[in-house]
């Protein structure tokens, strides 16, 4: 019955996230409130890793699948997307390469700097 308990905890935290999202007028999705609540619960020892681990792994494993319906929804907006296909494709390609290069390079430079100064 441990899956029942694990899913209960995860869904309860998700529900808490939804409640906060409802009452707090910020553009923060319920899932992010939930993530922060879960991290706080794990860090404080209120929830033990073992009490959510298997169900958590399962949900992270199937995460790519949860993208399918929304992405397939493209079929409904194709008419809207078609005229901007070129700019969207260019922006997607350039920004993906730029983000990867900059974030990796900055991390590496700061790491090297830390080692040099003997930290």
């Amino acid at each position, binding site marked *: 019955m441990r899956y029942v308990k694990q899913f209960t905890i*995860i869904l309860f*935290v*998700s529900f808490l*996230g*939804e409640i906060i999202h409802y009452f707090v007028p*910020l*553009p*923060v*999705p319920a*899932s*992010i409130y*939930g*993530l922060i609540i*879960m991290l706080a619960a*794990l*860090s404080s020892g209120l929830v033990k*890793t073992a009490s*959510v*681990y298997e*169900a*958590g*792994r399962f949900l992270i494993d*199937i*995460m*790519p*699948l*949860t*993208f*399918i*319906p*929304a*992405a*397939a*929804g*493209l*079929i409904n*907006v194709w008419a*809207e*997307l078609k005229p901007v296909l070129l*700019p*969207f494709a*260019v*922006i*997607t*390609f350039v*920004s*993906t*390469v*730029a*983000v*990867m290069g*900059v*974030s*990796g*390079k*900055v*991390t*590496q430079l700061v*790491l090297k700097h*830390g080692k040099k100064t003997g930290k």
Partner: protein
Amino acid sequence: MEFLTGSVFFGLLLSIAAYELGMTLKKKTGLGILNPLLIAVAAVIAVLALTGIDFETYESGAQYLSYMLTPATVCLAIPLYEKLELLKHDFKAIMAGIVSGVLTSVVCVLAMSAVFALEHEQYVTLLPKSITTAIGVGVSEELGGIVSITAAVIVITGILGNVIGEATLKIFKITDPVAKGIALGSSAHAIGTTKAMELGETEGAMSSLSIAVSGVLTVIAASVFAQFY
């Protein structure tokens, strides 16, 4: 057809079977471009287009997959918690990398949206493109973007990052495992993390970490940048 599409399991089965097909194709060919998610989305669209089954019918079953987005994102706290020590150790470098990645993303989208003279709605649709769908779709919705296009662009970004990841890391001479993980996770979220996991354990851990951190930071950055254009 009625008896088939009337079942709530039709959309769910189609989605999962399409993903399974994608995984099988990837395994058989070993080609990075045959990303299971890309194949799954293409297969679902092809089936709907060829059979004439409307999207609403498909979605009546497939929506149950979407409902798992929030709890799955909540669970990203688990690997994040497990790598808390690693995060503390290289905290400065990791945060510098992720923050620079988040800023690069929103600045790039802002600059190029201006160049292409996009509308505000299209601009905010693209703003959360580098982060995981669970968060990105929420951000897009809050800012008034077109959610399904955001989801599609996020998936395309992820697949692109996965396919060009290794070559890009080589070109930029990014060799440190921590830096590689941050680069893949910041630019291509969960799908980039799949590639990071292939490269090594540290890469994978750092990449999962950046999904959550850059996701949270982008929530803030995107809502600020939404005012600029």
